[in-house]
């Protein structure tokens, strides 16, 4: 349970600083963040003790056990070390940021994001489930994106954040793939179980892709060459963020992953060459480039890259001792790099610049900061009596025993020494160029002062650690190192000693060469800088990344423009072409006969006439499509013939529905035509018409063949179930209606919801829309002067009650005879619309004051509530019940809950149809009112 608390505290606590209002003062958010962090440290304490006792604490919370998914947290030695680093350095950074950030900056947001990131990092190191680890991993990418882009008004910060997200997020996807493969190979996603399956996994055929994918994830996160370039760009972040992200946390996540999966994945040649190679290249590349940075943070960024390379190289060397050295250097790097970033931030804060060409001679202005920064930089260089020396010594020693390289075994110590030389040189530059080397030049802020004591305090603590570890390694870091390295290896630790003095030996000689060589290199810097700027190739990974991103964006733009050039015709034609091709291909390759074995039924004359009428009207509609009113007549002929087809082939419900819908559709089209040009000009060239005709024939032919081959084949329907159960199960004789309101009631509920959404969408579309009445391409069209004929308006008023009665009848009988909510609703709507048509909108509005949106809402609500009602009786959603009751005078009456549901459908349908037509019909009226009101 403390583990769960440990992860949840920062994640949930991240809300706290954001919720604190600005008037609460600038200390409040930092205080909240500090309290949360301290609470998390306390929560980590039992886990830490358990890890030391050798019985790691774990918590498993099953979520989808069938899929092997659960919440799994486990805190072994390796995780414990990282938890300490994350929380400890986090606490120091919170204190530091309190003084670094200006009062007017969004402090609440900063500390919220900071805690969010902290929680994500804790999740990564504590996860005992591969996929859960990936989730937290991506969360670190996202939250670091927000942290790096904290100064979002700065273009540089946004660019740096986006690049960090692209690279680390992309690597996260590779990691996900790798973890899925790993889980498939092992048959489990639980990391603690996986760790014992190393032999099985290394022998598996999928080992190579798995390893490469996971390495891709780790190397992007830990800024290994050639994915290193996001890290210097991420220096656009506020310095506290850099101090946290690039010392102990974000970039160490990749290293952590390598350490975590070390027992599973290491021990092969591929691991040695891939991991070791990436580490070696990064080590040299970063060390070389760090020397040539003029930006203080840029130097630290490249040095971070280099040191990460060193750690990765140590893991790649693949011996237990090298792994111990890697973990040791990881701890040391976290402490001295965090303090260096903080010192750089202090200098930036006090001088207003980070350019080392301007900052000189600060020893005279801020000696305390200078002393601290110099100690930390010396640790970075690997000077004796500081922690960096010890781990670097171990590293040098390890490179001497690389038998795997064969005859090229001298290469590793040489490269290591070279990297050491550069490390000393850039550290010397950090010390000499900033604190000595004459007087400052044109500083934006002058003279610089010592920062507030509490801003210095975190640096003091960290540098103190560097010294303590460097002088008394056995008393300070040894137990933590043994614990973490032991749990990383999953095997007994090799013998090693953390002493400062091992006698005169090869590693010491390498250290000395590095020290002397580095100082020499630094003194020759002028000549070196000139050489570097002349001869270093301008093409680097950053430029490659940026140009490939640009190329991809423009290629995507071009492709989009080819497919979608603003013409619906082109898009539709492409879609239809694809559909025709998809149908033609199997048709061309199939050997099955088009015609099935079923005997055909005879054609009767009446049906033939109806079909011919329908087809003829459709063809006319297509031919005369520019004469729009005529097209409507043709369309209504088709619709009515469809109604008759439903009647002819035993579908009374459909016929009724289609008839009513036909009326409202045509009315709607007429209303719309009022606002559209009544005639169209020929727009298409003959070639285009030919293409469209071919497409149309292709689609039509395909649909016809499909119909034919279905109708001539025997089939087995699932409808027998509905037919058999309609009366006993649903209590209705009209199977279609019972399906709608009972068997498939959930679908119907969805459908009326869609209807409601469409109607509201239409209402929104028509809002504030004013259109001129339609014209014949420029000419005003004359309408009949007589607005409302007397006969029609009188007749419709008389007919209204009758029509409503019919609709009630249709509704009530719907369960047992053709009818039901849909049909009744449509009939009601038609009757009401007829009023508006005959007597005018204004008159109808006076008589019938009704808002349709509530009607729709009630309809959907009643239908849903009927469904939910069955929960009260312990049945699943939309279980229906029915019973027969006898009432005096009325006789026997059947009541079903489905009827209530159908009533919801009825209300929704009435509301939808009326809302659509009334809004459209009102358009002119509202516009006139708006104009009057506005004028």
């Amino acid at each position, binding site marked *: 349970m403390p583990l769960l608390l440990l992860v949840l505290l920062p994640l949930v606590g991240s809300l706290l600083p954001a919720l604190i209002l600005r008037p609460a003062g600038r200390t409040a958010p930092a205080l909240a963040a500090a309290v949360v962090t301290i609470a998390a440290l306390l929560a980590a304490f039992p886990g830490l003790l358990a890890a030391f006792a050798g019985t790691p604490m774990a918590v498993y919370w099953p979520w989808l056990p069938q899929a092997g998914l659960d919440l799994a947290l486990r805190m072994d030695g390796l995780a414990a070390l990282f938890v300490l680093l994350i929380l400890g350095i986090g606490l120091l950074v919170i204190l530091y940021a309190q003084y670094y950030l200006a009062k007017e900056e969004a402090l609440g947001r900063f500390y919220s994001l900071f805690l969010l990131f902290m929680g994500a990092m804790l999740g990564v190191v504590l996860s005992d489930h591969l996929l859960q680890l990936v989730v937290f991993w991506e969360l670190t990418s996202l939250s670091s994106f927000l942290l790096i882009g904290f100064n979002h008004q700065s273009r540089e910060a946004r660019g740096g954040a986006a690049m960090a997200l692209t690279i680390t997020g992309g690597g996260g996807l590779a990691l996900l793939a790798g973890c899925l493969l790993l889980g498939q190979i092992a048959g489990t996603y639980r990391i603690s179980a996986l760790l014992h399956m190393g032999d099985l996994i290394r022998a598996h055929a999928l080992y190579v892709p798995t390893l490469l994918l996971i390495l891709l994830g780790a190397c992007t996160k830990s800024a290994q060459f050639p994915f290193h370039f996001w890290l210097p760009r991420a220096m656009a972040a506020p310095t506290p963020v850099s101090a946290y992200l690039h010392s102990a946390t974000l970039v160490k996540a990749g290293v952590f992953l390598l350490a975590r999966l070390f027992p599973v994945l290491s021990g092969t040649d591929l691991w040695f060459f891939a991991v070791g190679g990436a580490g070696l290249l990064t080590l040299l590349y970063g060390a070389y480039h760090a020397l040539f940075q003029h930006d203080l943070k840029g130097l630290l960024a490249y040095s971070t890259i280099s040191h990460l390379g060193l750690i990765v190289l140590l893991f790649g060397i693949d011996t237990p001792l090298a792994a111990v050295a890697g973990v040791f250097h990881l701890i040391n790097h976290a402490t001295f790099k965090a303090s260096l970033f903080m010192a750089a931030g202090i200098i930036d804060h006090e001088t207003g610049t980070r350019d080392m060409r301007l900052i000189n001679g600060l020893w005279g202005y801020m000696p305390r900061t200078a002393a601290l920064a110099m100690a930390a930089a010396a640790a970075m260089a690997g000077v004796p009596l500081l922690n960096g020396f010890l781990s670097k010594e171990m590293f040098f020693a390890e490179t001497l025993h690389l038998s795997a390289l064969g005859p090229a075994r001298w290469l590793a110590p040489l490269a290591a020494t070279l990297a050491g030389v550069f490390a000393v040189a850039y550290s010397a530059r950090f010390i000499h160029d900033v604190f000595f080397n004459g007087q400052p030049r044109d500083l934006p802020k002058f003279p610089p002062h010592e920062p507030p004591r509490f801003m210095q305090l975190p640096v003091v603590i960290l540098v103190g650690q560097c010294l303590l570890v460097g002088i008394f390694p056995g008393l300070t870091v040894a137990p933590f190192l043994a614990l973490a390295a032991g749990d990383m290896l999953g095997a007994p630790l090799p013998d090693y000693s953390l002493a400062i003095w091992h006698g005169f030996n090869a590693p010491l000689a390498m250290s000395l060469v590095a020290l002397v060589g580095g100082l020499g290199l630094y003194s020759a810097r002028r000549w070196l800088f000139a050489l570097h700027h002349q001869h270093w190739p301008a093409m680097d990974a950053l430029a490659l990344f940026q140009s490939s991103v640009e190329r991809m964006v423009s290629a995507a733009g071009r492709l989009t423009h080819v497919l979608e050039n603003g*013409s*619906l015709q082109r898009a539709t034609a492409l879609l239809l072409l694809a559909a025709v091709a998809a149908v033609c291909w199997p048709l061309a390759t199939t050997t099955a006969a088009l015609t099935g074995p079923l005997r055909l039924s005879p054609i009767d004359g009446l049906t033939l006439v109806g079909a011919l009428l329908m087809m003829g009207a459709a063809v006319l509609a297509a031919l005369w499509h520019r004469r729009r009113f005529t097209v409507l007549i043709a369309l209504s002929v088709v619709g009515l013939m469809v109604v008759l087809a439903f009647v002819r082939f*035993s579908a009374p419900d459909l016929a009724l529905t289609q008839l009513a819908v036909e009326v409202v559709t045509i009315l709607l089209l007429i209303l719309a035509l009022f606002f559209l*040009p009544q005639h169209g000009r020929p727009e298409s060239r003959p070639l285009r018409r030919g293409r469209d005709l071919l497409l149309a024939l292709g689609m039509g032919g395909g649909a016809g063949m499909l119909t034919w081959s279905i109708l001539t084949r025997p089939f087995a329907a699932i409808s027998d179930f509905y037919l058999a159960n309609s009366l006993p199960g649903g209590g209705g004789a009209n199977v279609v209606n019972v*399906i*709608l309101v009972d068997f498939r009631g959930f679908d119907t509920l969805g459908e009326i919801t869609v209807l409601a959404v469409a109607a509201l969408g239409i209402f929104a579309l028509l809002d504030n829309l004013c259109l001129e009445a339609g014209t014949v391409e420029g000419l005003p069209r004359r309408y009949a002067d007589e607005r409302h004929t007397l006969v029609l308006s009188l007749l419709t008023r008389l007919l209204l009650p009758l029509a409503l009665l019919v609709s009630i009848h249709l509704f009530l009988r719907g369960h047992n005879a053709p009818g039901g909510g849909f049909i009744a609703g449509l009939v009601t709507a038609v009757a009401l619309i007829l009023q508006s048509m005959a007597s005018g909108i204004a008159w109808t509005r006076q008589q019938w004051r009704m808002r349709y949106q509530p009607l729709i809402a009630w309809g959907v609500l009643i239908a849903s509530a009927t469904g939910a009602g069955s929960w009260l009786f312990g049945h699943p959603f939309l279980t229906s019940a029915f019973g027969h009751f006898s009432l005096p005078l009325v006789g026997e009456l059947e009541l079903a809950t489905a009827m209530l549901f159908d009533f919801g459908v009825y209300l929704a349908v009435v509301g939808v149809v009326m809302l*659509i037509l009334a809004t459209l019909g009102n358009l002119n009226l509202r516009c006139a009112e708006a104009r009057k009101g506005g004028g």
Partner: protein
Amino acid sequence: MEALAACTVAVLVACGVYLLLRARTFSVVVGLSLLSYAVNLFLFFTGRLLASAPPLVGSGAGAEGAIADPLPQALVLTAIVIGFAMTAFVLILALRARGELGNDHVDGKGGR
């Protein structure tokens, strides 16, 4: 009869598609309506062409066993109503487009 049904569906689809590919909104809406008729008919026809056998049970009409398939009918019934909502939505969209753009072109050439 089956051939006639197939022919009808084919002609309706072809005319609908042709109209769908015209350059002005109104034709597209009419084309969509024709297409939805065609699709509804097609779905309905998959339940077979039976005369005088509505899917009403218990009334004696289906006593001989030959009764129309209710499932496609239920599907088509909602399809008709949804089809109406879709037609209406597209139509109003066309009106709005005319209001916003000042023309009723869908070929991207209205601005010229």
